[in-house]
């Protein structure tokens, strides 16, 4: 019995296969293969025993295909999905990401919007200043382009991932 997954991390796609072997799992990633036992699996806390020797403590939580994980103090954000499902989502995604949407990297408060609709910006131009935990963070444009839309104003409270400004290439 086996199961295939595709992991999307930092724009890289990685194929993983899980094979059940008795009470253990054989996990294959590229050339590498390891035997995993689940010592503790109480979402989001997991403890795995790898190759009957190494203990791996992990915090892993899922929101559909989105996965946030913390292993050995390293935070990872990735997507895990059935490779066949991806064929569907791919067509939806194409064309959407040609511009530069500036999103809030963390929950916070908009201190200043430095551009207005129609403004020309360069890569590295400060666009929005967001404050969280008493530190101000300048968010920069990732591309050369034009401000298509400004979604927020100074004083707004924003959630992590919320769209702030849309910039299109030009």
């Amino acid at each position: 019995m086996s199961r295939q997954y595709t992991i999307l991390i930092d724009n890289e796609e990685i194929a993983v296969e899980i094979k059940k072997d008795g009470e253990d799992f054989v996990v294959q990633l590229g050339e590498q293969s390891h035997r995993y036992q689940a010592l503790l699996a109480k979402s989001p806390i997991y403890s795995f025993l790898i190759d009957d020797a190494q203990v791996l403590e992990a915090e892993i939580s899922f929101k559909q295909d989105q996965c946030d994980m913390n292993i050995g103090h390293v935070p990872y954000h990735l997507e895990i999905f059935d490779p066949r499902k991806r064929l569907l989502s791919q067509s939806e995604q194409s064309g959407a990401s040609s511009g530069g949407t500036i999103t809030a990297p963390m929950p916070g408060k908009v201190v200043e919007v430095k551009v207005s609709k129609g403004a020309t910006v360069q890569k590295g131009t400060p666009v929005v200043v967001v404050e969280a935990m008493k530190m101000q963070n300048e968010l920069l444009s990732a591309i050369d382009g034009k401000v298509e839309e400004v979604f927020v104003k100074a004083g707004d409270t924003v959630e992590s991932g919320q769209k702030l400004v849309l910039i299109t290439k030009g």
Partner: protein
Amino acid sequence: MKNKIKKILIANRGEIAVRVIRACRELEIKTVAVYSDADRAALHVRRADEAYHIGPSTPSESYLNVSKIIEVAKKSGADAIHPGYGFLSENAGFAEEIHKAGLIFIGPDPKLIRAMGSKIEARKIAQKAGVPIVPGIERPLVDVKEAEKVAKEMGYPILLKAAAGGGGKGMRAVHQEKDLKSAFEMAQSEALKSFKDGAIYIEKLIEGPHHIEVQIFGDEQGHVMHFFERECSIQRRHQKVIEESPSPFITADTRKKICDMAVKLCKSVNYYNAGTIECLVDKNQNYYFLEMNTRLQVEHPVTEMVTGVDLVKLQILVAGGKALPFKQEEIRQTGHAIECRVYAEDPFHNFMPSPGLVVDQQYPHGPGVRLDNGIYQGFQIPLEYDPVLSKLICWGRDRTEAIERTKRALTEYRVSGPKTNLYFHRKALEVDDFVKGHYDTHFVEKHLENILKIDREEKTKSLMAAALAKFLEEGKQPPVGVSASGGSPLQEHSVWKTSGRREGLRK
């Protein structure tokens, strides 16, 4: 002689409020916590004997609300107020209002806060006392135009600093003229927000410096003594991250000179209660007085670990009018202590703040380990305040043991939910320059890339774990849609049974 303090209001939150409560408990003093909306269920509230709501989450409407805090102090029957660090701890007006209300402020006289707390005044006092200072102008800048003019005369790089500042807030280093305007505006806006004072001053930036500070203590009888130095050169954006005592860098001769200088400076103004003299020391062991903090420091525990003195208890004792119970020669640095500040931030994404729910927490324990913690499992970390979650302080017989111990404790320590800088700490302590004690304030920028490098093997195993967790997760739900090899994922594995069995065996 003042009456003995029986009840203390702590005008702060987080780990420092918890720390002050600890000292009060040992002295059998009742504690009064204050809290904002966001801190309704905070640890400092839960640890206190009494707690009072003081307003909305925005600091200016709660933890910076002087009249409200004093009103609560009176209502609760507290006879003294401990300001902690940050917030109102260096606000002379607050201390004055406390005195006017007939209460004790646990800290120095408001006049001393005003004089020594203002970097500009403090520089004048230092000059008068014959203490070396860093070149700069001794009044706040009028506007950005003046900043440009002075910076040009002084020569880049320069440093912009909030006159009322501390902890890197309202502080910006500027290396070229074109960056000055935006840096000035950001420093001013941060200063206004954090300290309600937008005064900015400018000084020459000394490159390659060590940030070394001396813990001093005075009493109202006129005694001043020091508790040696702390090396605080591991900083990021002028925010200290790792501190240690003793400094691995300064010589015994420099140590003596700096500590004597700190005592001399404080004696010249009849300073009392806890204070810290911050210095820059260059690679040739030349030292310059930088500023004074007229309050308890975040990193005070490293001093407590090497001297064996509870500085918070000492603050309370001195505030009650007692004389310092030690002589200078009774205070020694024994062994070595290192503190790691644990922040809710993501080191892998430009240290973005990471507030949120604490899902799980595992504390470090064992020999020589101290954790000054401000959160608990289930607590929602607010986005309105400092990202300091806790401080891990480890003591060893020597520096090597202190490093080994800190690394060990870090592997035990886990915080799930918010992202933390624990990985940064673990790897920073392995950097050769740190191990050898060869570092200055540029350590973080110099080594950051290396520190944050993730081992390929580790990453592979982590990704495998993610896929397996997904597999197990899917198995918990009733089969939906397609399943890989035709069989129901529910039947494909029995890990739930087996892991239950294993847990049973362990008990």
